Each structure stands twice: as C-alpha cells, then as structure tokens.
C-alpha cells in the first residue's frame, strides 16, 4: 500500500466503493442525471406533442411506456420529468446548504444571543413537518417550479443550520481552534479554515439524504399543482393526472412513480453508504 493512497479521503472512497448497494445507488443517480441532461437527445418524442390517434395507448414497441390522455409519449415525459426532479433535488439542497451552513457556523462560533436566536429559529422551523411547511410556503409564493424549489430550499435549511452549529460548537471547544483564535485569526477565517473542513463529511451525508427528501417534496408539490405547471412534464403532476385514468390506463401511474421511487431509493442508498464510509469508527447500523 503506497503512502499516498492512505489519505482519509481515499480510505473513505475505498470503503464507499466496497459498499455494493451504495455503488448501485451512485450508478442509478448517475443514470438519472444523464437522462435529465440528455433528455432532448435521447427522448423518442417531443414530450409536449399531443396526438389524437394515440390517446391512452398501452405500452408497445412504438411507445415503450405507452401514451397519456393527450396522446403524448410517456417515456419522453418521464425522461424530461427527470429534469424537474433532479433540479429540485440538487439545486434546492445546494441553496439550503448555502443558507444553512454559514448561519449555523456563525451561530456556533459567535455564541451568546446570536446563537440563541438562530437556534430558536431553527427549532421553530423544525417543529413543523417538512412537507407541511413546504406546502404552506409554496402556497403563499404561488404555483411555479421555481417557487416550489425555493420553498423546499428554505424548509430544508434548518437541518443544516442545526448540524453546522453543533459541529462549530464542538470545534470551538477544541485546543486548535482556541489556539487559532489566540493567534488573532478573525472569526470568518476560523469558520472557513478550521471549522468547515471538519464538518464536510456529516454535511455530505445529510445533503444526500436531504436530496431524497427534496425530490419527494417536489413530486408532492407538483402532484398538488404547486410545482411544475402543466403541460411541462414532472413526475408528480403526471401521477396526479394518472389518478383519473386508473381503470382505463394503469400504466400512466406506474412509470412516473417508479422513477420517483428509484431515484429516492438510490439517494438513500448513497447516503447510507457515505455515512458508513465517512465514519472512521465504521460500525454498520
């Protein structure tokens, strides 16, 4: 074993790659990301193209996932729908990280009343279940995919505030941060150089699990008509219209739901794998 391959990062990567289910999750996530990016090139048809002659046709060689109540190709709509879901998952959680982490680190390092106020605000937001808060926010912002994403980002941020604050509090009590402070480092430098690198592993795990939650939230909001607006395809709104044709066209309900389930499962598997890989004590729960 060479010295270079033994950095903590590489060891974690090796542990992750040994975790077969986590690798499966990574592969599925990568496939869905590719589907989202390449949708215009790989989709067999235009997702908005309606057709009078192909209304509610069951899956066939011509339409692998069948067609919907307006004769649109379901496979193409599922592929394009990946865009809304992946964007909502990845962008919302990135924004939540950008809001939550600096605020959390600030609270932990500053202490005093700043910390008390921030901690109470995070508590208050966490006392309402995720989906209900997201629905309320999206309802007041108005129905649109961007608003749904904003609502999800804001709702997802307090968990990062709490996590970053906890880690910053822990770091503040250590000798090396105390020493750095004594040397006259300004607070922002303490946060950036001494606290942030240490909290990246748990943040990464939480972010992965939060993406799964954000994707479900986007699908839920779109299902309720608060997210992606028709006719633009999204898995949630496809399921909503599929519900009206359960007896005549059950395939409409199968494929978008299966897509949500697979993506969420994949992110959860990745999150579990990351947790095991990044925890040096490494006991599998």
């Amino acid at each position, binding site marked *: 074993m060479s010295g270079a391959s033994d950095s903590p990062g590489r060891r974690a990567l090796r542990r992750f790659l040994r975790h077969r289910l986590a690798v499966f999750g990574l592969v599925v996530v990568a496939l869905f990301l590719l589907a989202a990016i390449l949708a215009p090139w790989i989709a067999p048809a235009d997702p908005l193209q309606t057709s009078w002659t192909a209304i509610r046709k069951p899956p066939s060689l011509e339409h692998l996932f069948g067609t919907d109540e307006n004769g649109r190709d379901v496979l193409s709509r599922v592929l394009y729908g990946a865009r809304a879901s992946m964007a909502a998952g990845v962008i919302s959680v990135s924004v939540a990280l950008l809001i939550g982490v600096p605020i959390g680190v600030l609270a932990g390092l500053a202490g005093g009343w700043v910390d008390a106020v921030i901690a109470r605000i995070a508590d*208050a937001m966490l006392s309402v*279940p995720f*989906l209900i808060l997201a*629905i309320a*926010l999206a309802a*007041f912002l108005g129905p649109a995919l961007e608003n749904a994403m904003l609502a999800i980002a804001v709702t997802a941020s307090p968990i990062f505030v709490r996590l970053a604050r906890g880690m910053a509090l822990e770091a503040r009590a250590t000798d090396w941060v105390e020493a750095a402070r004594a040397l006259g480092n300004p607070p922002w430098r303490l946060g950036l150089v001494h606290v942030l690198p240490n909290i990246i592993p748990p943040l990464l795990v939480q972010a992965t699990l939060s993406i799964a939650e954000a994707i479900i939230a986007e699908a839920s909001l779109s*299902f309720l008509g608060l997210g992606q607006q028709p006719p633009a395809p999204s898995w949630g709104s496809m399921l909503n219209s599929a519900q009206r044709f359960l007896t005549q066209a059950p395939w409409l*309900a199968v494929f978008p739901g299966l897509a949500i*389930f697979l993506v969420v499962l994949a992110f*959860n598997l990745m999150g579990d794998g990351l947790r095991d890989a990044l925890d040096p004590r490494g006991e599998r729960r």
Partner: protein
Amino acid sequence: MLAWFLRRLGQIVPTLLILSVMIFGLQQLMPGDPALTLAGEERGDPQVLAQIRAELRLDRPLPEQYLHWVARAVQGDFGFSWRIREPVAKLILEKLPVTFQLAVMAFLIALVIGIPAGVISAVRRDRPVDWLANGLALFGISMPNFWLGIMMILLFSVQLGWLPPSGYVPLTEDPVQSLATTIMPAFVLGSGIAGVLMRHTRAAMLGALSQDYVRTARAKGLDERVVVGRHALRNALIPVVTLGTIEFGRLLAGAVLTEQIFTIPGFGKLIVDAVFNRDYPVVQGVVMATALIFVTLSLIADILYMAVNPRLRSA
C-alpha cells in the same frame, strides 16, 4: 423533575412565538393585494375594498395586525376561513379525529411490523432474514406515500375489487366500513414509519445484545428467548419509544397526500383544499396547529424517556 419540566416548557414558548411570527409573515410573501383577490368581481368598488380591509384589519400597521392575530391564536382562535366562513379552529377540530384515527391505525401497523422485524434482524444479524428486513425497511422509507397509495388502489380496488378506492365512513357510524375505508391509507402511512422503527429497533437491539448484563443472563443459563425478550428488548425499546412518539407527529405530514389520494376528509385534505382555495387563514391555522401537536409530542417523548429510564430522573 419539576424544574426540568419547567425549563423544557420555557424552551417551547419562544419556539412557538418565533414560529407564529414566521407564519404570520407568510402573508407578506403573497403576490398582490389580498383584498383585491377576495373582492373578486367587486374589485372595482372602493367601498367593498375598504370594508374587506377593515374587516381583516389589513389597513392597520403590520405589528398591530400580528399582535391581534397572535393574541387570538393563544386563545385557540385562528380567525375565520375566507371561503367557508367558519372559524378555522372549528374546522381543524372537526377534521382532526379523522386523521387521528388514520394515524393511530398507521402507527399500530408500523409497530406490529417494525419492532419484531428489528428484533429478528438484530438477533439474526448478517443472515438472509436480516438482509430481507433491511431491504424492506429501505423500501418502506424510499417509497413515496402517494405512489404506494395509487398502486394499492390499482391492485385492491381496481383489479381485485376488495376495498373501496376512496371515501371515509366514521368509526361511530359503521366500524366495519370504517376499517375498510381506512386500512389502505393507514398501511400507506404506516409503511414508511415501520421502516424507520425497524432500523432503530435493530440498532438499539444490537447495542443491548452486546452489553454485560446480557452476557451475564446468558452465562446464568437463561433461555435465549428470555434473554432477548426480557433483558435486551426492554432496554432497547427506550430510545425507540422516544423516536416513535416523534414519528407519530410526522404522520400528520404524510397524511396530507395520503388523504388527498383516498379522498379522506381529514386534516391533510383541509390544508390542501385551503391551498387550492387560497384560504390563507386556514393554511396558517393548520401549520400552527401542526407545530403545537408536534411540540407537545416531543415533550411527551422526553417525559416518556425519563419515565422509562430511571437513571435520568435525578438529573
């Protein structure tokens, strides 16, 4: 114990107050003037607009509007629904028992599946049964509620015709029909929680089984069932009890979509309908009521934790 309880209550009050400010603030996010929205056809009539503004106190300064709102909210009065013209609190109290029935059934299903699965999986660690249980738990956690609901309707109502696809019959009216209308949504709600409970029971059991007292019990020659059931499980259940209480609160969120899919007139359907009707006082009231229930449940969880764990009582 009393001092601890008072300190805990002292944390809850500011949390709820901050939340009330945020929920009140939601109104400010609304695009446009609510008075114009409410006036509808009569939006051109300044007299109607003035009347609406006066009635809803929209003409007062914001802090005054907030104080008025929160002072009434503390007394359990969340104002009037804009559309149904009834007190929001009354609407919530009407819908809550329906969701409560659903939540209790879901929770029972989750307990009956999750805890034994967790125990078996810990005892048979790294065997096929363990993998199966872990797989099912992950399945339950990753399955979106609403899709599972639609798939169950497809199978049990459309294909097999065993259960009604939607609707609700109160328990007091016809218990059998009531169970028939709620068993599918309850299972949908319970499956995710069963997964969470299974994982936590498994982790707690693995911890308990490696303790000295379990080794002692085994060394005494006690039957393995007694060791697992009486010694390990009792201790392992302590964290699971706390967690279960909090998961119970989360059922409320799950109920939102589940009730929508099965057209059950509960708490979740109330907020969805309110969102569609732009009935903002109802949305605010429901969010506040949910927070109240959630905070109360976590207080109960803490008390239970103290009650089942005597070592903490003196702290």
